[in-house]
């Protein structure tokens, strides 16, 4: 049985259809890349998956998360699914963190919640230790300072890694990562991508990876779905799609990526 199963998802608002008839599924442990140009509906699809679309959206079709129907589900049912089944890293690292709460406290929040849900009591020291190790896993330097910092006091890349750490704190079965590395410089990006790949392998976590950066997607996922203007135009194995793109739009993406690649000279 698949962990996430989206069938005929159509999203519309104010008379505009922004996502139409999108279907795909993710099996436990599977890594799926969702690519497409800006505004093609990638983030909306992710939001629909966890039932957090902005007000005023109409949802048609079906989304099954770990066997539970999300479309039309009650808020309390969704709360049980969010975090534990699917955790999300949002696109905008600048605003995704509460500007008035120290980083350590924010990361601790999902940690504490997970333990509480599991019926365990945890002391503060244990939580602090766990927060520390989470931040270590996302390769943050100088963790003792960062824990005590407010989001505005750390760099964009660091903020993005904090957001990832928060999602990981939930130990979800499915991690939805919406362009998690765009704010990072290439050196840090490599570390994060390696981390994500590692987690999927070790913890058997499934991954929905959203990006428009083809080389990045190629590095962490095995399958891709290509979106354009809210519609799926192509899907398949990463290598197959990138080697032999069928749709013209996909081809233009691949060509551009290859051209940049070439300019850099041979890989080393």
């Amino acid at each position, binding site marked *: 049985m698949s962990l996430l199963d989206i069938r005929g998802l159509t999203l519309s608002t*104010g008379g505009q259809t922004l996502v139409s008839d999108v279907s795909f599924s993710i099996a436990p442990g599977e890594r799926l890349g969702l690519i497409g140009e*800006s505004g093609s509906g990638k983030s909306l699809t992710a939001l629909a998956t966890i039932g957090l679309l902005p007000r*005023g959206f109409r949802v048609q079709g079906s989304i099954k998360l770990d066997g539970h129907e999300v479309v039309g589900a009650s808020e309390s049912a969704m709360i049980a699914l969010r975090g534990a089944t699917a955790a999300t890293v949002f696109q905008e690292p600048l605003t995704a963190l509460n500007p008035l709460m120290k980083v350590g406290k924010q990361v601790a929040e999902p940690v504490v919640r997970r333990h509480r849900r599991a019926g365990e009591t945890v002391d503060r020291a244990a939580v602090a230790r766990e927060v520390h190790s989470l931040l270590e896993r996302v390769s943050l330097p100088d963790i003792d300072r960062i824990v005590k910092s407010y989001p505005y006091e750390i760099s964009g890349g660091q903020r993005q890694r904090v957001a990832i750490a928060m999602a990981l704190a939930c130990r979800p079965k499915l991690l939805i990562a919406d*362009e998690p590395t765009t704010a990072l410089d290439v050196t840090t990006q490599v570390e994060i991508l390696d981390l994500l790949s590692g987690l999927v392998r070790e913890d058997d976590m499934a991954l929905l990876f959203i990006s*428009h950066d083809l080389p990045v997607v190629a590095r962490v996922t095995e399958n891709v779905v290509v979106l354009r203007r809210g519609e799926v135009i192509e899907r398949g194995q990463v290598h197959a799609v990138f080697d032999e793109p069928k749709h013209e739009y996909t081809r233009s993406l691949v060509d551009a990526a290859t051209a940049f690649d070439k300019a850099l000279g041979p890989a080393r």
Partner: protein
Amino acid sequence: MSGQVETATMPNRRGSLTLTVGLVLVGLHVAVALLTLMWTPYDPTGMSGGRLEAPSLAHWAGTDRLGRDLFTQIMIGSRIALIVGFGAVAIAATIGVTLGVLSAFATRYLDDILAAAFDILIAFPTLLLAMLVVAATESASLFSATLALGIAISAIVARLTRILAKRILSMDYITAARTAGASWPSIVFRHLLPNIWPMLAVNFALQFGLAVIAEASLSYLGLGAPPPNASWGRLLQEAQGTVYTAPFGAIAPGIALVTLVIGMNLLADGLRDAGDPTRRGRQ
């Protein structure tokens, strides 16, 4: 980082309803005010009825102690309210926006002084200001009440302008304009003012309402427009003494006042929602 494509402005149904209601209310007052320039049901100072007659077909809102028609006076009150409101806001806008922008551009030293001046002026009772202005202009008049309110409000406007302007001045497009060689006046008039305008306009509407209410309060304390100007505040104040025997004297001007102030606020909200090219339909 990835770009988002913003959706085009969506017609906002609630916005257009606010706009319509606001337009109707304000329009009604403006129309009545204009009408009184040419025609009123009765001579406003003429004693056309008995003392404190209750509303009737002949006198829709009743009569006052001198037997003058209240409805006529309320109509003329529209004129005064609009003059006070628009006048005060115009004065406040001129002084406040100028000082606010100046302060935003100023060196830190001057800026501190101006900011402190705004704070003090805000802390200063409008009432005393009104007294001082009335004194400086020889006698209590519509003009001096308007001027006093204008000055009082200008501090609030200046403070708001300063904050908004600072935010805009830190945007890249201001830097872009500077590096393109644009002069300061051009930055102020082409970039700064158009961008703070919508926020200011909404605040102006709020201040318009406050000015009309403040004029009423000043009249209540005997500092507003002098008779025979039938300001709503004065009507309310006069009606207060007869609130048990002739409550109608207080109700009609009250309704007039409330409708104008609400209308103005709705109008401003609606205009902002409808007219601002950058405003997204908010869910």
